[in-house]
């Protein structure tokens, strides 16, 4: 009789812990951290080995809420000459010929009720890596942060940035 009591007690305790952990982390982060991309574009090669600066391609970041990704024409401009024979580049040119944009898969997707202005964060002097991780070492981009509200808030508090709800939610 008694040992059943103990087992029940332990089970209950476990359940409570698990449950609260679950509730604590709601909403759950189920998004694929490193989705497969239509083109095997390597940030390691571009940003790492070639040492191209982030803002060279994502050039709207300092002026616009969106960092922007290079237009297909921009990619083409370089790769007309640089390693034009590689299969992936040929694929790229294929997109250009078909005049259709590349359907990149978002890695850093925020819900629509969140407003994230890149320019404000760059103005504040944050390095891209503080949110995007060491991109220069990644072949395929892997999300390196949780992108959960708590995570945003912590950073805002550290930098005494505004924590008014309307700063990010309108």
């Amino acid at each position, binding site marked *: 009789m008694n040992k059943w009591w103990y087992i029940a007690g332990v089970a209950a305790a476990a359940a409570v812990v698990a449950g609260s952990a679950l509730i604590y982390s709601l909403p759950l982060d189920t998004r694929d951290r490193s989705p497969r991309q239509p083109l095997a574009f390597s940030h390691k090669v571009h940003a790492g080995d070639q040492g191209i600066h982030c803002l060279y391609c994502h050039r*709207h970041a300092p002026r616009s809420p969106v960092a922007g990704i290079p237009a297909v024409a921009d990619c083409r401009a370089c790769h007309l000459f640089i390693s034009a024979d590689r299969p992936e580049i040929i694929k790229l040119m294929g997109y250009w010929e078909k005049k259709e*944009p590349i359907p*990149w898969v*978002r890695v850093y997707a925020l819900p629509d009720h969140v407003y994230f202005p890149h320019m404000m964060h760059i103005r504040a002097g944050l390095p891209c890596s503080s949110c995007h991780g060491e991109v220069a070492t990644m072949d395929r981009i892997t999300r390196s942060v949780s992108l959960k509200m708590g995570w945003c808030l912590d950073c805002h508090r550290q930098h005494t940035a505004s924590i008014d709800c309307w700063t990010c939610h309108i």
Partner: protein
Amino acid sequence: MKRRTFLQLGGMTAAGAALAGCRSGNEKLIPYLIPADEGVTPGKAEYYASSCRFCPAGCGILVRVSDGRAKKVEGNPAHPVNRGKLCARGQAILQELYHPDRIAQPLKRSGSRGSGEFRKISWDEGIALLTEKLKALQQEKTTDRLALLTPPLSGTLADLTDRFMAAFGSPNHLSFELLAPDWLRRATRQAFGRASLPWYDLAETRYLLGFGADFVEHHLSPVQYGHAFGRMRQARDTVRGHFTYVGGRMSLTGASADRWLPARPGSEGTLALGLARLILADSLHDEQALAASGLQREKLLRRLAGYQLTRVAEQTGLPQQAIVEVAREFATTRPALAMAGEAVAFQSNGPEAVRAVLLLNLLAGNLNRPGGVYPAGGGGAGPENSFSGLLSLVAKMRADRIGVAMIQGNPVHAIPPATGFQEALARVPFIVSFATLLDDTALQADLILPDHAALESWGDVIPQGSAREAVVGLIQPVVTPLGDTRQIPDSLLATAHRLGGGMAASLPFQSYREMVKGAMRRRIAPARGTDFETAWTELLRQGGLFGKIGSTGEGFRRATAAAWPEPGEPRFAGDEKEYPLHLQVFPSTAFYDGRGAPLPWLQQLPDPMSTVVWDSWVEINPRTAAELGISHGDLVEVTSPAGSLRAPAVIYPGIRPDMVAIPLGQGQQGGGRYARGRGANPLSLLAMIDEGTEPRPAWHATRVRLTRVSEKGNLVTAGHPQGSYRSDLVGI
């Protein structure tokens, strides 16, 4: 124009996806194909200047464009007409662009007329079809069998259509619009000797006497006069402009008045002259002004002998006391201003009445004076009675002397059937419509060559009577055309080129854009000849050419030859016994003459006075309603000699007991999902009356009868019926 390529690229910031837990629509990250123009930053909105062509006022607009989509239409602060302000209709043209039921490509009728069955065809086929018909006319040497119906046109489009019709050899270009201010143009010429619309200096006046001039809703230039009204009231520290409104129905404009004189319909002219007589009798008039225009007080008094206070009071149904007060106020407060509007002009004695009102300005000595009346800039010479033009065209169509009719706008809905236009049009073998929606006219058409929306078009607009200085507003496309549409002038050019010969020669332009650009070049040629391109981009940036071309210096003065206004007894269609009530049809704030009805924003905008949404209604004085046993929201039937309609009743304290009023615009067979089959079209009630030598549009001269049908009017008002009388509870 590279920003046009935006549309084939997805938005970078995801709009639209609903806020649902953690899910989000922006799974993909779509890059541009071609990098954006210099100075265009994705994710950041850009503003492009253009002009509104919803109504002839021609306000300047700035369109907020974000990622290749037009997001919002705002007033252009640099534009002298509307100074950064914009009315409800102007802002709603965005929905003309994005209307879900827009015609995406040329259509050829496949079913019977009005059935709404059309076959999609290519532009080539479309233009070919039209040219073939026109060629036929040419071969039969009956080019005058071509008719072109448009609203009053200005600027390059007017030029183009003139050339087109001239080169083709047809005199039948009718530019008609129900609310066109022809009557005012004529009255001004006859009274003040200049064929120009007046421009009232509302902002500076201290006493405004409005005779049914509903400048807040639609009269001449709502936004600019709305702005002026605000300044007249409160922009001056010590002075608050006073406003007296004359009219049987308290319109939205009348609602802002300090004093309301509900004169009997058709008696406004008499009232004006009665006031004139009182003013002269007490010699409160402006002596110099009178002398300057070669008039003597005594002579005038003799002329006005017929307008003693008692008679005027009796005719207008107003208390003598009020008339005397108004006369004194008007004459003793300088500057004072008298405006005449549609409510007066569309009476059987309208033209005379309007001139009588203008006379008051002369007595107040406010011609070409601050707070007075100036000739509007930009010439403004235009038709003085396009109504007779309409009737003659109708006659021709009846006589089968029209083979091809090309129609811009929606006359089938916006012209009173009493003119016989609709039946006559039905006899025309081939009808071409340029509609953007399948509206009532397009439903009758054999061929539809869909026009661009305003925000996709090129063009220029010369605002009508909207500004003192001359203004040319530019229209430029702010987004890529959504569908396979073409703007009317380009369709005409294409046709002309295909017709070849003299036609092609008279219109040697690749595109309408080029034509507009050329016209602009000519306009600013005197100003600066060199380097037009930069000037052109500058013009596009600021939205047009403002105040640079000198407005013709000479102002108004009394036309000595002018006939003395003698507004006779008003005549009405319908016998007083059988039809006891006067009917007034009025353009509602939202729908204008009906072109606003297809736009959901305007449908759900509560009418300011009745707060009705998504419907049309009949305004009835509480007393009359009580007599007829009608209560708020009942379904009533309005019958006139010309026809009858059903609509819900609105108890409306601000209308004469012997009047009812119905807003224009609803009751369309077509016009897309938001307008179709909604409400009733009061134009079907109007009867024609022939007065004097030439026909006149007496749209307010019809009598009606009212009967209650049921309590199920299905009326929806934004305001609570009882609560609307409890301002005491909010302390205003």
